[in-house]
């Protein structure tokens, strides 16, 4: 593929990762913080931003490690453990930098930053980019798109749950129960984006 085709493909992957193949609503990855931290728009926003940032950067890093270290040595099967190590170390690093230079951001993100280490959507994105054999540029688009997709989904969910706070929900369905049902309905709604992009 030449340069222009690469860029347009990366863009297609970027858009499809946000909408048609939303990592949360079509693959149901990263569901735990999605249900746990979606009570308020404010905190969901902070977590969403952190996920976008970490997902994009770790996808890039993992791509480099996979293609320049693991592939030449024939150690592809090691990607699970290495990806996790890299994600964990990177999240720590990001936390340190943010704490030092932006106490405000640090305060907004709070405990959510370290929580991202164990967010399976982050590992999922890195593994998808390997399975689908993306190039580096496409991986950047995919990582960023997946992050934004996750961000949009949790913001939407938090908005809905804030409205739900004043509604009368049957006791057995309160909390995670109704949240899962809403997530299902949201996933159905996102299916509506299918076909927007040809070839994704």
């Amino acid at each position, binding site marked *: 593929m030449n340069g222009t085709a690469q860029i347009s493909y990366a863009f297609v992957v970027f858009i499809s990762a946000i909408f048609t193949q939303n990592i949360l609503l079509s693959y149901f990855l990263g569901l735990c913080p999605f249900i746990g931290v979606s009570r308020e728009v404010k905190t969901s926003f902070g977590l969403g931003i952190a996920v976008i940032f970490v997902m994009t950067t770790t996808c890039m890093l993992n791509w480099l490690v996979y293609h320049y*270290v693991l592939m030449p*040595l024939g*150690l592809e099967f090691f990607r699970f453990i290495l990806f996790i190590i890299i994600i964990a170390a990177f999240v720590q690093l990001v936390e*340190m930098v943010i704490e030092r230079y932006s*106490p*405000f951001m640090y*305060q907004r993100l709070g405990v959510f930053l370290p929580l991202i280490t164990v967010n399976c959507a982050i590992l999922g994105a890195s593994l998808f980019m390997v399975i689908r054999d993306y190039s580096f540029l496409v991986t950047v688009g995919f990582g960023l798109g997946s992050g934004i997709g996750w961000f949009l989904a949790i913001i939407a969910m938090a908005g809905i749950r804030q409205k739900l706070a004043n509604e009368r929900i049957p006791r057995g369905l309160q909390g995670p129960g109704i949240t899962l049902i809403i997530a299902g309905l949201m996933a159905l709604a996102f299916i509506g984006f299918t076909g927007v992009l040809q070839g994704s």
Partner: protein
Amino acid sequence: MVFTVLISVGVVSLIGAGLAALMVVSEHFFADYGPCRITVNDEREFTIEGGRDLLSVLSGEKLFIPSACGGRGACGLCKLKVFEGAGPLLPTEEPYLDKDERESNVRLACQVKVRNNLKIEIPQELLAIREYTCTCADIKDLTHDIKQFRFELVEPESIDYVPGQYIQLLTPVYEKSSEEVHRAYSISSDSEEKDAVELIIRLVPGGICTTWCFEYLKVSDQIKMNGPYGDFRLSDSDAPIVFIAGGSGMAPIKCILHYMKNTGNKRKATYYFGANVVKELFLIDLMRDFESELTDFQFVPVVAEPEQDENWDGETGLVTEAVQRDLKNASECEAYLCGSPGMIDAAIKILHELGMNDDSIFYDKFA
């Protein structure tokens, strides 16, 4: 095959080591806050390396702030005022601070990270809290499951406390417990005796600290305790006093009685002390001495179910029943209670019925 194993181990170790090195280097750059100066109550100043939480920094300086959770932000006890340098209130602190506290700069010490110079205020009574190293000087059996322990202070050499306060005894790691725990016990000795404290401890079956005290602690062993804590103390009023205690609840009352004797306090006082059988009563002679030494003090031991051969001619039944029989109108009195939660709840109920309001009831509840 062997080659692959070696290569893979090598690669993972190398990448792991590389990341660890990166973390260490960046920690050095990013988490270096330099020396920070902490000013306590405008009196004391010290400089420490920034980057740690305030609670651990303070305990490193021998300033003990009460904390039950060990700095995880789960108990909300380590409150103090931070006037400068703490940054905005964290979401982890919000649940523990009410509106007034937020406006007066109260923060949780375990959540505030020292990043720059701080100006803080620690309540005076907390400044008196120290860690004491002591030697166990004497262990005396009071009943079959209550012992009196005497600890002589080694470092620092003397302790100042208000009669009625308690200390926290540090239980070291021993056979039956894999972690250090602190347990609170009221001081029972005379507060004029500043170089030793006595505790009255009842054996709790399976209890970490009491088992250690009863089965492992020996005379001349060294132990650590910190304190004093608590606001259970004698008020300044002239109202007649009703003491109600049971078992090891004797401790703070005994301490207060010593204090009343020392200060020549002339308040009328009656002490109802409950036990199940006669052989569970203890320190009776000392109480009879107080009766003759204090101006207007009466000791009323109450035995719930005296056994046939014990020849008991005193009050019987529950201690609360004896109070109810004796005290017709309690509205003028003040009550000081110490004992099991069940006894305290029962006593408070009776006292309410006798016309006492909550402002006049003081208690220490040890679960």
